[in-house]
């Protein structure tokens, strides 16, 4: 049984490593505390004519039994804070080097679908050679290259979530949130793009797909998107499970 999905981005392994480290601490503390609790119970059950010990927990001699473990907790907390901050900084901020080499793409959420805008051959958004991606086709990203995601929404809150990238970010109307991802594997089956923030009645059906392609394919895509789209499959059409697909949550 695989617990985590495959990791196919340059920072996915950092997050997986963090999960493993935290798990070690958490399981260790849980096991020790639970063992202490049950040891305490089963060695202290009522006996005929027995008398409980009067231990009010005053003074170092008594409180050391809880204060020494507490110091260890503080140490573990500090360690987790440090490793967390390292990974957080790596995922959430782009270095200048990454920024210089990145390929921008605009991702827009709206009830209940995703749309994409590509920078074209000049590699810059906001210029004349920008073009819209086709509805019904996946988001195309190049492999081993930093993609600068410009995330926004036209109506509600949505959330851009790709499990394989270990990346998730709310998208908000009225602002553009810039984050990055570097895919590390050409996708066989497309990765699923999930809306992970409730956005209305059909939030559950707001699904997209991400296709990671080789640099040559990506260049071909930018040069002639229509031809490239011809050659790839459509995404799975949205399956509105609602009986009333146009019904709007209020």
């Amino acid at each position, binding site marked *: 049984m695989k617990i985590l999905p495959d990791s196919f981005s340059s920072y996915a392994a950092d997050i997986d490593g*963090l999960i493993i480290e935290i798990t070690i601490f958490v399981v260790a503390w849980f096991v020790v505390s639970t063992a202490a609790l049950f040891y305490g119970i089963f060695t202290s059950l009522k006996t005929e004519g027995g008398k409980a010990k009067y231990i009010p927990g005053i003074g170092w001699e008594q409180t050391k039994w809880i204060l020494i473990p507490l110091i260890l907790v503080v140490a573990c907390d500090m360690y987790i804070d440090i490793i967390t901050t390292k990974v957080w900084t790596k995922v959430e901020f782009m270095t200048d080097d990454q920024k210089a080499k990145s390929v921008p793409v605009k991702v827009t959420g709206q009830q209940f679908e995703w749309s994409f805008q590509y920078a074209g051959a000049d590699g810059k958004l906001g210029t004349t050679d920008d073009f819209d991606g086709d509805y019904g086709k996946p988001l195309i990203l190049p492999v081993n290259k930093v993609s600068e995601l410009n995330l926004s929404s036209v109506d509600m809150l949505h959330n851009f979530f790709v499990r394989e990238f270990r990346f998730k970010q709310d998208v908000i109307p009225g602002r553009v949130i810039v984050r990055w991802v570097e895919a590390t594997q050409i996708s066989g089956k497309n990765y699923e793009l999930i809306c992970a923030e409730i956005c209305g009645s059909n939030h559950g059906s707001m699904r997209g797909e991400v296709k990671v392609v080789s640099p040559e394919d990506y260049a071909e895509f930018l040069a002639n998107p229509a031809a490239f789209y011809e050659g790839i499959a459509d995404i799975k059409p949205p399956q509105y499970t609602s009986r009333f697909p146009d019904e709007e949550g209020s």
Partner: protein
Amino acid sequence: MSSHETGLLGKIFSTDHKVIGKQYFFTGLLFAFIGGMFAVVFRIKLAWPGSMDMSGTVYNGLVTNHAMIMFFWAAMPVLLAALGNFVIPLMIGCDDMAFPKLNMMSFWIFLVSTLVLVLSLISGLWGGGGPTATGWTIYPPLSASYGGDYSTVGAVLGNLISGPSLLILAVALEFASMLMGGINFMVTSLNMRAKGMKFMDIPIVVWFVNLAALDFMFSVGPLIAGAVMLLFDRVFGTGFYDPARGGDPVLFQHLFWFFGHPEVYVVLLPALGIVAEIIPTFTRKPLFAYRLVLISAVASAFIALIVWAHHQFIAGIDPRMATFFSITTIIISIPFALIMFAYIASYFGGQIEMKTPMLWATGFVSMFLVGGVTGIYLGSSAFDIYAHDSYFVVAHFHYTLIPVVFFGGISGIYYWFPKFSGKFMSEGLGKLHFWLTIIGLNVFAFPLFFTGMWGQHRRIVDYQVYDFMVEQDWILQFRVVATIGAIILAASQLLLFINIFKSAVSGEPAGKNPWKSNTLEWVADSPPPHGNFETYPTCYRGPYEYSHPDRSGSDYWPQNEQ
């Protein structure tokens, strides 16, 4: 000692803190039942998607109102209002609350809030959109958009009587009621303590209820402000949260969570307090490190006010800010670790009798450890990039709130029932209830950690939309297992209702002090009359002097005996 209310109306519109406590308690139980039923229905839909035809709106409505009801109309009235009302005057040795009429008003406003809540649920009957379906966090813009017509009085009124508007009103009324209760608790605890009761003689549960009330007071203001702005956006068409008109939806998230996180401690602290009363009584030894436990709780109540943005790590806040909140969140584990260590240490060297209340209290300690340690994961901002809004979060908070509300709250019911009815509850039924509940909790919530790790996220009515959520057999099976656990958990609560009513009618008489406990409520008759005590007790010592070496012939030393 005090006037006795007579007649049926006098008994219903009573200013007696015990009657008001009971009114809160039974109203809370009724809503816990309704909220629980919502959960059973949508869990069945999740496990067997073909079993019912349910739209996303209905599903979101069930999820939203399950959370709202369980939190604001079950956990809050039972663990804060009912508990505070029952135990504070009795445990500090006075005849009633400082402001009995305010106390009565608090309950009746609460009752009005439940009616407005019901109106919001049935608002579909007059075209008001039906139950709120925005998730319990009622984030705008989703919650702010409605109708779009603000031009006439009729249109504005129509916006006002729509489901989410009514829900926001109901929550505001409920908060007004809890504020009145909280003020009463604090004034009573500060001014009406028995002669001789110093601060360090006050039982932990009284301290913790007061800390909870204090946290509530500090945090609720911003939320009310946020809710009023949201209501204005909905009803009058203002643009506080509309970016097109200079507003910002993230503002609401800050106001919501500034309240929303301390709110968890508002129910957690009373439950920790109940357990702190039960453990010494049934181990026959003092609570370990009373002062450290109290200091930790004060620290946690303060830190609780500066962790809120950990709910928003990836909601669009500045990533630099997240580091601060990640650190404060992980720091809050320190006071709670100390409290849990002190509770565990209290067991060592005791003479433990596993009566039903003790079994539930021990269940709380053991299960709350799971909720506590998994909080460390979610305090880590980088892990949250992956886990935010996933079932890992769902599993974590059910492992904190179910121990708190079920195990903490129910241990209190089994512990104080003899005081308030004069009868024992059935031990056999109580233990059966315990084992079914703890099995139900774990079968329900543990699999959700794994489905969350796999990436299953919240508020999705039908997981068949996504390939990854159906392509592995185990994830399908885990969803079914979790549903079976939820059904066991919900169904076994019937035993509590049966036990309460059976014992109230035909329970064994309990007498004044059935558990041989120290605190002052056990000095009064069972059940205590209006006015509580024949003569006001005097307090000579702390609440947990069990098996004291200076006391001969008895292993407990009531606070009122010299």
